[in-house]
């Protein structure tokens, strides 16, 4: 098997995650889908690392994880405070972007 298949898998997972972001209304699930996309990217980085024979790709994946952790912390905090004020975790309820 060619390790390229990992990349295809990564692309597939990324796409699924992106679609999930678009069709789910629950902010928490949307967030999970974003995590899925990040993970898909990480997989690609790890495979690239293997492809090039150095560890830089893994470093990037590592940083991604750290940033994702920070993001989750802040993001969930936002969801919680949003829920407190609006009693809902639906992204559609926050439709203040309309005129």
């Amino acid at each position: 098997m060619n390790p390229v298949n990992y990349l295809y898998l990564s692309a597939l997972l990324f796409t699924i995650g992106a679609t999930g972001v678009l069709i789910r209304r629950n902010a928490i699930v949307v967030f999970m889908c974003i995590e899925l996309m990040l993970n898909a990217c990480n997989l690609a980085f790890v495979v690239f690392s293997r492809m090039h024979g150095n560890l830089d790709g893994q470093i990037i994946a590592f940083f991604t994880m750290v940033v994702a952790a920070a993001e989750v912390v802040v993001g969930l905090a936002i969801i919680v405070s949003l829920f407190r004020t609006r009693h809902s975790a639906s992204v559609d309820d926050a439709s203040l972007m309309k005129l």
Partner: protein
Amino acid sequence: MENLIALLIAAPLLGAAVLLVGGRRLDAVGHWIGTLLSTVSFVFGLILFVDLLGKGAEHRTLIKHLYSWVPVAGFQADVTFRLDQLSMTFVLLITGVGSLIHLYSVGYMEHDERRRRFFGYLNLFLAAMLLLVLADNYLLLYVGWEGVGLASYLLIGFWQHKPSAATAAKKAFLVNRVGDMGLSIAIMLMFTTFGSFAFGPVLNHAGDASEGKLTAIGLMLLLAACGKSAQVPLQSWLGDAMEGPTPVSALIHAATMVTAGVYLIVRSGAVFNAAPDAQLAVTVVGAVTLLFGAIVGCAKDDIKKALAGSTMSQIGYMILAAGLGPIGYVFAIMHLVTHGFFKAGLFLGAGSVMHGMNDEVDMRKYGGLRTYMPVTFITFGLGYLAIIGFPGLSGFFSKDKIIEAAFAKGGTEGWILGGAALLGAAITAFYMTRVMLMTFFGEKRWQPDENGHEPHPHESPRVMTIPMILLAVGSVCAGGLFSIGDRFLHWLEPITGHSEGNSPLSAAAVTGATMVCLVIGVGIAWAQYGRGPVPVVAPRGSLLTRAARRDLLQDDFNHVVLVRGGEHLTRSLVYVDHTLVDGVVNGTAAGFGGLSGRLRRIQNGFARSYAVSMFGGAALLVAATLLMRAV
């Protein structure tokens, strides 16, 4: 001496300025100021005339360059005056008759509160007319040309409170404008052909240009002449122009302004001589108009309109003569001058009659006036004899020569033109006799008007009769004075040139034929209007009579084709402008408004919706990148 030429124009111009700007303060003396300045101009003219007579025939052209008017690379219009025998003749006619009519107007307009302004306009007219005949280039002539048009507009519409007068004034100006268009195109053609439009370069080099161009110039000049001189097809304004005060009709619409077309053609003789087609067109227009005017003159019951038809017809003679080339130029001008005398006299007589008849113009309500106003009767009668060409009076000499020249044209054309001129002479005799009989002979037919005022016909005051007498003297003597010894011919020949045609008929034969026509015309008129009483209400008359009463349906044609058509055109254009031109723009605006309204709905405020478009955009970017790599 040359400076006097400028003063010739300056005097009436000053009068116009003073009278029009001066305001009510001058009401008491305004008419005398106007008359004085007009007379001053006449005196200047006389001085110049004497001066010219003192010179040799070839030194009789005086040029006065005043200043450079419109200097633009290659286009040099100067204010330069030229006084030669031709313009001298006109100057004397204009200022002479003009001064007499000023004098007459003092009496005629006595009761009009706006008399000062009337004299201002008259002076303005004199200035413009003098500018017209004294200009040394066509552009300056054009200024005078439109200037007289303006004066005519103001004077026809002098009684502006009458809608008919205002309409007539507008009509006169508009029809004239059509002619003016011809003059401006002619000037443009001259400029592109000769690089100049001064008389000298154009007329001296006319022979060098191609015949096509000269024909075009000639036809355009003819169009201008038709407008100003009320020739077919632009004759319709003259009849309506009789709405103006009678002195105006006498001065402008009989003696001077309407003859400007003849002046223009004679002045541009060199161009016409080299363009036979244009000449032929001129003669045709002249011949048609002389019959047209005469027929119209026969049917009118309004004394002034009958005279207006006569004017049209007589100018037709002049145009016909001018179209004949060097054979006819001198006689055109000669007829012009004699016509100036007798027609002005006739109009003043008509004015005098109206003055005594509470401004009644319908000849069917006159009758037997010869006893009530003898001076008017005699002067009018002399004018009448002159115009029908009674032997020995001025009309006899000038008209006879024109008919002779028309035959001398030779060939079929000669016969046709000569025949038309002869026929015209007969009709002239008829309608003038009709006017004479209906006005001064027979029993009185006037009745009290609605207010019960019975007219009390009376002779006009001295200030009016003196000009009439002087003009009558002119109508009697001018012809003989000019013709005996061919004085007028020799005077004008250096300018216009002259050639003797070989007429198929001898001079005596032509004179004989004219006399026969005269007798026939007078006879028929006598049979119809002299023997029995004239009905107060006009009989229905034949088809021709009815058509002639309506100016041979020319106004109806104009109304249907031009006025109605124009109204429809402008109305539909207004509609088009509003709905189509503006509609396209407003439609575009509305389209954008609608489109943005639609697009606004896409902005529904849902973050997910925006995310989709973002994602789609990202996909497109990736696609673009891939495509770029693939290429």
